[in-house]
């Protein structure tokens, strides 16, 4: 596949390295001559020095034959412009952008960026996974429906311990998709008895995770 990477931030560099290693044809458009030199030294002639939001530079980089354009500069604003250019001027099939401000995710999606990778969200997820006593994990953002797949572990003192699943009132549009017990994985049914340390895998509207968390872990 021919992949165009805009911006050689740290992420851009490691991404390019990984893409090359998996056999893709990659060109990186990077503004800083020093970073371009570094890229050439480390990875061979993959760098094109220039502005990734400039149409002439993008054309030189072969944007019109790129299968994927990945905007990976360290600024959300530039990543948006690069993706919009790729999509509207060069009809790139798939545009992907890296963002830092989690609140920018919806606007990128509305404006047609195909894949939005929220680095803050990723860091948060991996930290949450390791913080004891905070058993709420965001597993996946179900993009098109603005829903979130989450995992919530029921603490010992939670009010729902010893109650049946059917008795637990869930927030609107939320549902349980799986219950992981120490004895194995159970499909959710109204009769299923909830125990401490059960892991609940649920789907809930984005932003509403806390309500579900409070219901399942509240005393």
């Amino acid at each position, binding site marked *: 596949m021919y992949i165009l990477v805009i911006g050689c931030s740290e992420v851009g560099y490691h991404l390019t390295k990984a893409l090359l290693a998996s056999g893709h044809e990659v060109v990186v458009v990077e503004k800083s001559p020093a970073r371009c030199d570094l890229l050439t030294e480390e990875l061979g002639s993959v760098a094109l020095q220039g502005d990734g939001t400039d149409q002439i530079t993008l054309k030189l980089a072969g944007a019109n034959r790129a299968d994927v354009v990945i905007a990976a500069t360290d600024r*959300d604003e530039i990543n948006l412009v690069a993706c919009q250019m790729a999509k509207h001027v060069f009809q790139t099939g798939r545009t992907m952008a890296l963002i830092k401000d989690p609140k920018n995710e919806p*606007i990128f999606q*509305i404006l047609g960026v195909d894949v939005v990778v929220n680095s803050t969200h990723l860091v948060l997820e991996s930290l949450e996974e390791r913080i004891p006593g905070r058993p709420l994990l965001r597993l996946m953002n179900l993009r098109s429906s603005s829903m979130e797949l989450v995992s919530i572990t029921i603490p010992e003192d939670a009010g729902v311990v010893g109650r049946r699943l059917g008795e637990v009132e869930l927030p609107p549009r939320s549902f349980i998709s799986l219950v992981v017990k120490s004895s194995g994985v159970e499909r959710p049914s109204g009769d299923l008895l909830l125990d401490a340390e059960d892991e609940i895998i649920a789907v809930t509207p984005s932003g509403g995770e806390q309500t579900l968390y409070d219901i399942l872990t509240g005393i």
Partner: protein
Amino acid sequence: MRILILGCGPLTTLLLASPDSADHQFTILSGDMDCLDDLADEPRVITLLTPEPLMQDYLQLGGIDNADAFLALSEDEYENILTSQIAKHIFNVGKVVCRLENPQLQQFYTELELEVVNPTLDLLQDLNRALQG
């Protein structure tokens, strides 16, 4: 009208000083503390110092939810592009204007139906007109 402006520079201060703006309420978002300080005594202006890079939370703090107009007049064209599109597509602000100096970006975003102003180009047209006259 409640008008939210991103950017504090000559364009913003000129706009505030113009008689046409006398009836409006303004909120100015900017990272330029000195420029905001100069506006602090204006009774119809609220100023809000923003961090670098600007976070969307600050647009909400500035009242974008209830603004009648949003003017992205900062010197950072990319910031103007992102915030204008947020104002238009997320908060459905009735009037959105985006300042862009780069002619290529200006043409591209005009085609994407953003209302774009280019002070340099306007100045050039005025100069040409003056020379012809």
